[in-house]
């Protein structure tokens, strides 16, 4: 009698039973709430980003909606939101399984998108198959040809990489024509999804605008030492500097620039620049630093949003993705108010409707917004929007950037 084999068969049977038990039949019940689920990285490498922007805004929105009596339905009744949240531990497989669980197991009415471009792409085919709209508010439009035909229910709320690159190139051209810049730029970018896409679009946009790229380097994830890269940029003769970086490197680049006394007229860093802790990370003196995003601080809705974020979450929102994420949820609430809990109708409404949000009215074109703030700049205590210039609410650009102190 071989004991190992017998115990093995026994354990296998247990495992099979465990699987079966994990999938109980759905029990029909009277609706007393709207179930909304999400799978976002609460731990692992993505957590730093996800816990700064995505999760706080999801929580704030749920808090705001429930404090106001719940989501409003077309017949005027209100239902509170019930949240089902999982942690994907920054693993793609966990996102996939988490969404399968939300759909088949928890039977949620809507699913809020995961954090980041890669994870939203992993979620997109599932969300499409299950017929859930996907409002990817922390992702730019991925460069896949025919993406909107492939996943008509996926919305990419941070716009396209080209839009950011063009807005920046236009800003540089204007300054060059005004004689404030010599038309040369030094660019560094992180060797990861965001940095590569932005840098690729920027190369094209700069070339079209006649701006000469005198330095173009990439660096790996996790780099914290920028002394050599910045001394190269300093020696390159460019008077505009752009880094398409992630938060950790953004802080390190800023500190190193300050230490080496590198202060070009245009200093543009990547993700993290719009975080409220940025001035503290750089030890103040960030006046004139530019980046993606920006907000119109004179807009009362934004002021009110910042105040609520501080009160409910206990910290300030960032000035790029956070208001966009919150707005995307306002869009969802308004779409539900107009069309009910029918997911297909809500998806259509999101694609074609016009919504009132804290950022102003939003109407999507090709599943992405066309009138975002693309470039912002630190002015005083705020990271204000400066491009597209001339749009209502934009601030005047400060060039050249003042010194670090």
């Amino acid at each position, binding site marked *: 009698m071989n004991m190992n084999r017998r115990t093995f068969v026994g354990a296998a049977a247990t495992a099979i039973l465990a699987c079966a038990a994990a999938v109980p039949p759905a029990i029909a019940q009277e609706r007393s709430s709207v179930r909304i689920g999400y799978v976002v990285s609460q*731990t692992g*490498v993505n*957590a*730093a980003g996800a*816990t*700064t922007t995505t999760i706080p805004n999801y929580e704030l929105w749920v808090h705001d909606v429930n404090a106001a009596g719940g989501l409003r339905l077309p017949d005027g009744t209100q239902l509170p939101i019930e949240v089902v949240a999982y942690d994907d531990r920054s693993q793609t497989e966990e996102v996939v399984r988490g969404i399968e669980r939300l759909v088949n197991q928890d039977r949620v009415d809507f699913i809020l998108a995961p954090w980041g471009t890669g994870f939203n792409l992993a979620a997109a085919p599932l969300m499409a198959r299950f017929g859930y709209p996907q409002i990817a508010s922390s992702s730019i439009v991925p460069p896949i040809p025919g993406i909107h035909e492939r996943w008509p229910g996926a919305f990419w709320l941070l716009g396209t990489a080209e839009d950011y690159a063009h807005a920046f190139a236009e800003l540089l051209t204007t300054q060059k024509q005004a004689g404030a810049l010599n038309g040369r730029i030094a660019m560094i970018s992180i*060797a990861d999804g965001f940095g590569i896409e932005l840098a690729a679009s920027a190369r094209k946009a700069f070339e079209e605008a006649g701006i000469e790229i005198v330095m173009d*380097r*990439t*660096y*790996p994830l*996790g*780099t*914290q*030492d920028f*002394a*050599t*890269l910045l*001394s*190269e940029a300093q*020696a390159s003769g460019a008077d505009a500097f752009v880094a398409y970086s992630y*938060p*950790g490197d953004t*802080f*390190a680049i800023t*500190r*190193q620039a*300050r*230490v*080496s*006394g590198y202060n070009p007229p245009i200093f543009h860093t990547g993700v993290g620049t719009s975080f409220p*802790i940025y001035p*503290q*990370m*750089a*030890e103040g003196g960030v006046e004139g630093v530019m980046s993606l995003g920006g907000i119109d601080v004179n807009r009362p809705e934004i002021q009110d949003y910042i105040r609520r974020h501080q009160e409910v979450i206990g910290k300030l929102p960032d000035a790029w993705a956070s208001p966009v994420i919150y707005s995307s949820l306002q869009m969802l609430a308004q779409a539900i108010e107009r069309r009910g809990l029918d997911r297909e109708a809500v998806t259509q409404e999101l694609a074609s409707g016009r919504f009132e949000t804290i950022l102003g009215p939003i109407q999507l074109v090709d599943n992405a917004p066309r009138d975002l703030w693309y470039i912002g700049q630190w002015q005083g205590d705020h990271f204000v929007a400066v491009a597209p210039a001339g749009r209502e609410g934009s601030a005047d650009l400060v060039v050249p950037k003042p010194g670090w102190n």
Partner: protein
Amino acid sequence: MLLSTLVFGVVLGGTYALVALGLTIQYGVARIMNLSFGEVVMFGAFATFVLFTGASLSPVLGLFVVVPLAFAISWILYTVLMRPLVKRARHPERVEIDSILVTFGLLFLFQGLFTQAFGSGYTGYGWLQAPVEILGARVASGRVLGLGLACLIGLGLWAATTRTRWGLTMRAVATRPAFAALVGIDENRVARQAFALGGAIAGAGGAILSMYQPVTPIDGGFLTMKALVIVIMGGIGNMGGALAAGLIIGIVEALVSYAVDPGLTLAATYAIFLAVLLWRPKGLFA
């Protein structure tokens, strides 16, 4: 340009060297491959942060709190976790595998606790950012201070191990563990002291690191990795070797980043590591 790259390399290597110094003592004397070493460094960084923001204690003064704390924690870890493993094992390989696994567990445990306490984002405070000019390169004074402290601690240790009786017993255990017991050395006591001392140095390294760089809870693993490469390059238990290897790695990284591609610094570190393993497995300076 080349000269300033070298300066950056030396400054970078200074921190590596200090951190590796602690690990080489732990592994060389206590014979525990401590994969949670980087987490003790992180502890030093987070504790300094708390003291600085909570009690407005200057990071240099904070060292006097953080270092004894790191010493105590490592002492307890050795007594509670490592010693029973050493005691129960029938042969040394078993201790090696078990200690690797347990310290792996500690790595995750600490990472989880740090994440709970400080969040997954960057934790840091600005201090000593004023630039210092060295041979045409402008370097943050915090980094230069780090390099200075690393040299100081390295010198102190060298003096302690070569000039004192305590150092003699340490070296005896490190080089001839089997004979140490014969001459009346309490091997357990020496190992515990070495483990705690290595932890204290790690804590100091973390405190210095936090002076010029914000940290995240998962940074410890990378530090351990780099420290291990340096320890092996320098020869296990060889303090001078660790200092030299740390500087070499720092300079190579700066040079590769400047002359080849910043994306290949780690590949370069690994290439050196592999070369050392294959040609001089006992370390460059054996």
